């Protein structure tokens, strides 16, 4: 959904929902997930509605993901690190446990 203006940027390997993927280094987790085009990031607790990054400045709390085992982390406020384990907070029907 988003692309890099300079495609030669350094890449790092992270884990997303159990699979290894390559993303640009030195960007936020939310930016990396938009780069991978893997929307939505979660289903809401109330109705199960699909949600994804909205404000990118840490105030809307729509981009919550599980990072290294900790749930509900704001993806827009944390930078990607090599080996980081990300898990989208999807409803079970959507295959979150895969």
């Amino acid at each position, binding site marked *: 959904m988003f692309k890099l203006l300079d495609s030669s940027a350094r890449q790092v390997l992270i884990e997303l929902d159990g699979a290894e993927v390559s993303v640009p280094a030195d960007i936020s987790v939310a930016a990396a997930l938009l780069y991978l085009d893997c929307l939505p990031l979660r289903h809401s607790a109330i109705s199960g509605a699909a949600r994804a990054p*909205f404000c990118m400045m840490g105030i809307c709390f729509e981009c*919550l993901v599980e990072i290294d085992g900790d749930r509900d982390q704001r993806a827009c406020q944390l930078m990607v690190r090599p080996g980081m384990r990300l898990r989208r907070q999807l409803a079970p029907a959507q295959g979150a446990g895969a």
Partner: protein
Amino acid sequence: MSGFDYQLLVIGAGPAGMAAAQTAARHGVEVTVIDEQANPGGQIYRNVDASPLADIGLLGKDYVFGRQLVQGFRHAPIDYHANSALWYLDSSGELGIVEEGVHHSARAQSIVIACGAQERPMPFPGWDKAGVMTAGAGQILMKSAAMVPAQAPVLAGSGPLLLLLAWQYLRAGLKIRALVDTSPRGVHWSALRHMPSALAAGDYLFKGLQLVTAIKRARVPWYRGADNLCAEGDERLAAISFDCSGKKHRIETPLLMVHQGVIPSTQVTAAAGCETEWNEAQQCWHPSVDDWGESSQPGIFVAGDAAGIAGARAAWLSGQLAGLQVARQLRRLEPVQRDRLALRIRNARARHLSIRPFLDRYYRLPDAALIPRDETLACRCEEVTVAEIRALAAAGCSGPNQAKAFTRCGMGPCQGRFCGSTVEQIFARETATSPQQVGCYNVRPPLKPVTLGQIAKKENQNE
């Protein structure tokens, strides 16, 4: 023993915070600055001296201007803490800060709150869908990650930032699929009476004209006076629809970027117990401050857009004024020195402020436009619709804070940042009063996430 951990604590390292810190430090005040980002600059000058972009000129001269401000700040004798968030502040000046996941509490003799602004929520049916983002988010992706939409995006709403984003995307070589302009037709003419004062800040007008000309020249489909915007899609955004010139339009798109102006971030000032007032021209709340930016709480100042929307250049100057008065209160400056230094700053600031009445009027939304259709989610977090809030108001619910208790609106993780303005407008209309009379949400900590583990760890480590 003074009992204070900081002489001056500045919250936020955007233009206002940087200026307040530098000014106070120049006069011998010991200054600490905390900021949530990794680099100084605020959202407006985000990453300006640490950019992943090959050429920051892509974003325009106003952004590049920030580089000298950030570099000056970096070289000043200031104790600057990046990646640090304020999660607690009360009217006694007691603070809680989380820095890189570690919590500590503190007290400050003087505080400058320079938390800037946030985008005014723009609720419409489907605004919570994955693939709908704010224009500010689009800018942050450019400034912090050198990322732009992979396909031509649709932009919708109104306000200078929407046009700026379109202009920046065009400069980056992108196409804009459509510009869905929701400012009502005719509203712009009423701004003309403010034109004489706006001419004193002609550079703002010139810049606006440049943006409009470039967007027209690129033949971006520009739907003026659009209404009834709606986002469709299940797991992610599939299409948007809207009415324009009596016709229905539908555009398939995976990405919609929305914007309808900015409003002050009032969470921190509200938590500190600063009195707030309703600004009818800007249709928002802001803390009441004196000529130096001091709030109703002695020793707590508010500088920049957090005290009312005036833009980055005015924010820089209001930060300087706050810094001078802090230095005066801490006996580092005589009143006569302070006033002499303030004169030039006030004159420069007045010039930047002279454009505001025009801009406020030009981009003003009719109050009715701030109340979305019934099926719209007013509160995204707790999924409370506009219809539910209206029904509560009609049934005699006393206002936004009681509506919280009945529906949980404003009680989710965003803490009312994206529903407060909508809920106030609904109550104002349903009770035929104004937001000033309706009031706003009470704010309670934590202002930003902190875990019990982080707080407990700190307590255990006390020497």
